[in-house]
């Protein structure tokens, strides 16, 4: 095991896959000489040269489109879009093209590409640079969506994504790049579609992903101080959802809080809540609670920004509500 920062773990994954497979290459804005806006690709240009580390013009749509085309004819592109917000320029290439090509053309071809992008709050970057848009992608059949929370998964999942053979949206969180964690020394792959128990517990389940996992863990620590043992599940893969793992945990704890940084309405939490409420109808001791960003855009003001997205205090509050829930309140 070595302690690595999240961004370094990602870079290791890219390096290893580029060394393993000459078809793997990366492309995007400012990923070469600059090393990436968040320094993930730093040094790759020097190591692999400009044919495999490609600084593109500012053209998000065609960065994604080019990745799709290259993937179709034998390449294994890993495209970087600097902020997920800019995916608004490239939804056609991702959704109407990448996600549908395998199906639309009768399975004749597939699109083995990875789209890395970065999202979330934490820098007071404002309404156009802080969104969390995973729900757009998880709604699209044909895509897989990954959002790791810790360096080890960042590495293992990125490697798996590169080998998967389907178009994959790989969501990093701007607030996690400097996070440190243990990463195995030997080569490994983290399976896509399998959730992780970030902390075991029996009193309730906190479900999250990406930076939300750390918010949940912080809340769990606080709950533990009050003698409450929360289980924290890290989805890791958002699509396909490891619903069985979620159901298994909640069947046991019978209480659940979902945490995410995307806005509440129509966030991924809605899907999870809908499924758990259905699968565990009559088994739950309290309604599923969602702690998400309030339904507003994000201010370019770090202090105000914090008021909108979930923090540990809100998660604790929701957890207490779930724990103290008395059914009489709603049965009428």
């Amino acid at each position: 095991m070595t302690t690595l920062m999240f961004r370094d773990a990602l870079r290791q994954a890219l390096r290893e896959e580029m060394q393993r497979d000459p078809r793997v290459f990366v492309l995007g804005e400012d990923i070469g000489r600059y090393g990436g806006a968040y320094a993930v690709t730093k040094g790759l240009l020097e190591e692999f040269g400009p044919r495999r580390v490609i600084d593109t013009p500012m053209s998000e749509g065609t960065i994604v489109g080019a990745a799709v085309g290259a993937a179709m004819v034998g390449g294994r592109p890993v495209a970087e879009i600097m902020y997920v917000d800019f995916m608004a320029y490239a939804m056609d290439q991702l959704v109407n093209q990448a996600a549908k090509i395998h199906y639309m053309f009768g399975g004749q071809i597939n699109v083995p590409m990875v789209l890395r992008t970065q999202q979330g709050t934490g820098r007071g970057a404002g309404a156009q640079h802080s969104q969390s848009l995973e729900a757009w992608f998880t709604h699209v059949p044909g895509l897989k969506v990954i959002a790791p929370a810790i360096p080890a998964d960042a590495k293992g999942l990125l490697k798996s994504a590169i080998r998967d053979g389907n178009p994959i949206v790989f969501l990093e969180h701007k607030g996690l790049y400097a996070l440190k964690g243990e990463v195995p020394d030997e080569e490994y792959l983290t399976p896509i579609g399998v959730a992780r128990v970030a902390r075991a517990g029996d009193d309730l389940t906190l479900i999250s992903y990406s930076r939300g996992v750390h918010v949940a863990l912080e809340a769990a620590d606080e709950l533990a101080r009050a003698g409450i043992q929360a289980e924290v599940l890290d989805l890791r893969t958002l699509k396909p959802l490891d619903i069985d793992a979620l159901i298994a945990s909640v069947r046991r704890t019978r209480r659940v809080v979902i945490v995410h940084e995307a806005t509440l309405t129509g966030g991924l939490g809605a899907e999870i809540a809908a499924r758990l409420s259905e699968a565990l109808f009559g088994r739950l001791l309290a309604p599923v609670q969602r702690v998400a960003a309030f339904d507003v855009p994000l201010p370019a003001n770090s202090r105000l920004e914090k008021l909108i997205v979930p923090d540990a205090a809100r998660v604790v509050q929701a957890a207490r509500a779930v724990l103290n829930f008395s059914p009489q309140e709603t049965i009428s």
Partner: protein
Amino acid sequence: MTRIRLFEERTLEVLMQGKLASTMCHVSIGQEAVAAGVCMAMQPQDYLTSTHRGHGHLIARGGDLARMMAELMGKATGYCKGRGGSMHITDMALGHLGANGIVGGHIGIAVGAGLWSSLSQNRAVTMCLFGDGAVTEGVFHEAMNMAAVFRLPVVFVCENNQYAMSLPWSKSTPAVDFKTRAAAYALPGVDVDGQDVAAVYQAACAAADRARRGDGPTLIGAHTYRFFGHSRGDPSAYRDPEEEKRWRARDPLPLFKARALAEGWLDEDAIVRIETEARQAIDAAVAAAEAAPPAADSVAFEDVYAPSGAQQLIDKAVSA
């Protein structure tokens, strides 16, 4: 060209008979010389991207008429298992990277194919065909620019049939020739008579040669006309009948026939033979398609994802 014309005519018949699986169908009658001229300039390893009006492109590339017709009819033997319909008929084995229903949606894909050709040095050229409507979409610009910056082996061919649905070319964009348009990307641009298959062929060959030499992309504007409406149910009320007449007088088929006879490329016998063979091929294709079983219900639910991590499948990607 004859095959394309006859296939499209038969498609309209089949459509009228209510035998198509989808309501979406766009035929290319009048534009055959572009498809033929461009595809004749291609080598086996080359790639092609195509549009919603793409039957001709695939036929010119050597597509199987029976599988095409079967696809139109939603049959199990169709190129896309009866699931893609007219707008997406595609044969990846021919390096045909897909007929696309999003105007301009495939232009980025062509850049990607060109990028991989450039990186892997597979000597393939990508022919990117699109309509005049696509020229005003943002992706056209991004793709031209990126291909130019990286000197990718892509030939951009605008099949300018004068209309994007009801919008005439003159209202779509200012009157600028393709040479001037290409100059904005420091690329060569050519305007060619899209009714003259020899002219299209020559321009496409020159562009493909340039691309193969590593000198980068070319933009070709092939000026042509669709003889029918945009799609079924479009009477083209927005067009001047005089204009239609003028263009119909320049039907690429008789133009070629006359030229071929005059130049001695073909004699009358050969022409009759070509036409007869084409007709037979299409009759056979329709018969085969009609006889084929419809797509099974299960087909609706298949192929959403490729088997994960399946290296074989990944390698099945049209390989370099």
